[in-house]
């Protein structure tokens, strides 16, 4: 019996009787982070990190049992622990160990410290299950400081023209990363309801974020020129934008590295900012895990598997329901979470 096996419900540990980020309802679910393709409704028991739990409770309206990063939980002899994945606040890799055999499931992750989320820590293992959303050598992120330099310059130029700068960023994760990374001295920062609802949950758990003003109906449009507005990607180009007056729009995503994808989004600017590993980080992470066997999940799996094989790994593809950084999945989830937040479905 393998320590972890891949079933139609998700990644299963038969010895402990638990699942990692399952996509169909199960009895016991260990959750890496709160994005909707990893934390799904309908499980009987949830376990996540202290830092990830509030958002999961808020989004799914469920009870979540928590652990600290690094804390060990033993279930039927199998030892589980959560380690920082650097993807969003509270996101974790899950380490599974039984009788000396160690597996690590990365969930979604990135290695570059962003000053907001807990910095990724490599975890040694025999078998690694890794995402490879951007597992192609054309994806090489610039340092975050350069990207924020571009975002600040864009904001300043718009402010000089009397326009609002509207940036489409996923409400959980990317929105806070943008917020924490921009130069607050340029102007006021406003948020869409979906972003503000998540901000509120994170502030409540003690995360320091710059001041933001929630855009409520009836707000005067005279206050927007010169400001930065953070909204879900789905709000860009929607009727909601009309209340902002003249504006320039931007999308922040790893996909913006590809000119073709950038042009498909009808935004004025595309900033290359991802919460996933790029090619170099992915290769470093695999190497530093010390794993001999690697399962690759969502992303450019067949190419990355072949590349790993040429590097001497026993590499295999696993088909999962995880979606990685999918521009359009983001848009879909935003609608869900906005309905939830306007429906008064708070924790």
């Amino acid at each position, binding site marked *: 019996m393998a320590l972890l096996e891949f079933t139609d419900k998700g990644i299963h540990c038969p010895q402990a009787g638990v699942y990692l980020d399952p996509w169909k309802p199960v009895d016991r679910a260990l959750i890496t982070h709160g994005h909707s393709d990893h934390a799904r409704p309908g499980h009987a028991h949830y376990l996540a990190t202290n830092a990830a739990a509030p958002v999961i409770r808020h989004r799914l309206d469920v009870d979540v049992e928590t652990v600290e990063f690094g804390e060990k939980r033993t279930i039927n002899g199998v030892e589980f622990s959560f380690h920082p994945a650097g993807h969003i606040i509270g996101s974790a890799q899950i380490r599974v160990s039984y009788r000396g055999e160690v597996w690590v499931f990365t969930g979604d992750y990135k290695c570059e410290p962003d000053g907001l989320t807990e910095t990724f820590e490599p975890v040694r293992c025999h078998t690694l299950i890794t995402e490879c959303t951007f597992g*192609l*050598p*054309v*994806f*090489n992120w610039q340092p975050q400081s350069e990207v924020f330099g571009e975002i600040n310059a864009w904001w300043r130029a718009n402010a000089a023209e009397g326009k609002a700068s509207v940036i489409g960023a996923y409400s959980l994760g990317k929105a806070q990363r943008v917020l924490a990374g921009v130069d607050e001295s340029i102007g006021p920062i406003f948020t869409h309801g979906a972003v503000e609802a998540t901000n509120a949950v994170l502030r409540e758990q003690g995360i320091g974020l710059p001041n933001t003003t929630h855009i409520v109906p009836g707000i005067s449009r005279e206050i927007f020129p010169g400001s930065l507005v953070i909204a879900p990607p789905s709000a860009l180009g929607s009727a909601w934008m009309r209340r902002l007056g003249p504006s320039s729009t931007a999308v922040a995503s790893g*996909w913006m*590295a*590809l*000119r*073709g*994808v*950038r*042009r*498909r989004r*009808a935004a*004025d*600017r595309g900033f290359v900012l991802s919460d996933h590993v790029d090619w170099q980080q992915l290769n470093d992470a695999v190497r530093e895990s010390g794993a001999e066997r690697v399962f690759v999940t969502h992303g*450019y799996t*067949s*190419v990355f598997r*072949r*590349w790993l094989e*040429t590097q001497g790994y026993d590499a295999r593809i696993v*088909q999962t*329901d995880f979606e990685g950084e*999918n*521009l*359009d999945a983001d848009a879909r989830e935003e609608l869900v979470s906005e309905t939830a937040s306007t429906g008064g479905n708070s924790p």
Partner: protein
Amino acid sequence: MKRFARLFAELDQTTKTNAKVAALAQYFREADDSDKLWTIALLSHKRPRRTVTTTLLREWAAEAAGIPDWLFEEAYPIVGDLAETIALILPPANWASDKTLSDWIEIVKALQGVDDQEKKRHILAAWQTLDRTERFLFNKIITGGFRIGVSQKLMTRALAQATGIDEPLLAHRLMGDWTPDTINFDDLVLADNPGENLSRPYPFYLAHPLESEIEDLGQPDDWSAEHKWDGIRGQIIIRGGELYVWSRGEELVTDRFPEFTAFKDLLPDGTVLDGEILPWRDDRPLGFQTLQTRINRKTVSKKLLSEAPVVFKAYDLLETGGDDIRAKPFASRRRALETLIGENDIGGTLRLSPLVEFDAWDDLISEREKSRDVGSEGLMLKRKESPYLAGRKKGDWWKWKVNPLTVDAVMIYAQSGHGRRANLFTDLTFAVWNGNELVPFTKAYSGLTDTEFNELTRWVRKNTLERFGPVRSVKAEHVFEIAFEGIQKSRRHKSGIALRFPRIHRWRRDKPVNEANSLADLEALLPEGEPTS
């Protein structure tokens, strides 16, 4: 290169036409003459002669990035552009440079005839000197295909703003087979009499699809109609005892159509005809597929000449006796054209595109229904009073195509798109029934909304049966209505047929797979008596 890269970034960062024109006009005011000239050339799809093969560029880029060739080749179709793939894959530059666009172009040109090792040294040095955007542009200069969301029309408008020269006049000056090596900026753009360039074509006048009901065009009396032929739009120029054949893509294609050589002895000097290059036999057009076998051949064999013979269907006269008559009304140009062709025995290779006689709009409605029978795509409507304008202009010329043919087919393979669709499965292969077997017969890439492609992409991920490299076979579960303009027999296709302009018309969620059409249904749509190509 920094100034050109800034222009590129400005153009690339906006989707607004006015902002693009403003950025270009500003560039045309600031850049030096040789950079301006090269910019006009690149945006007119003229590039320096290729001095380095793309094979070598790929090899060197993969080596510099420390990855195997196969990995480069996997990444390339996902990015969708070779120049961009190389720019993204290379490690960051080590130093910077002040060289201008023209300086870099001279460097590229100087590689002609140099041995590969020396070429490699220069290219690697360039890559190490240029930042990511500059590198992309440098690669584009070598590989060609400069599509940066700026049409020739926009470029001409910006140049008109920067120079104060009338736009249609500029459009005409920029036509033809000039290169930055044969002309300077002043002579091309500013000179009143821009050289005696005998081969210079006129800008083509392009029609819009008819948007309203035919009756809304007003009095039938004010209009002429003719069939719309499915060939290559062409302009034939006879000046100085020479013949020049231009395609709409502004490509000089004289040598590819030796059938037309005789025109220069039969038509008077100073004649320019607008018309359609059409494959033709036994008094009807052969399908476009037939012409396709010739389009990219630089030399045309006897065999090809007899298998795919062409005629020129003339529909307009732009110059006669050396005079530009484009400002005259269509009706008068047409009469002059009829006289000219009527007077000359051209042996069947030069033909008039006949006008359709009609008194009422209803006559045209029924004539349009016959389009497929005569091998045309529909009708063209031209206002009798209309001058010959430059470019795509609304109001006087309309194309009125027949409704497409359709068939219900099953999706059986999916492949992710490239470029702007890199993360979606958009390249789909469709099949029809042949007995109990599904036979693939066409691919289609367009016609669904982004939302539908997203939904389909999620479905493909979960319903993949097998992977063949980038192609996935999927469960035969979804039926789509495929629309197309024409159908022909084809030996090159497994199904024995080839479609013209196939695209997805709609997703037939209401249809079970067993109700999709059959190969026999498709074959019934083949025109009668058409030879296999």
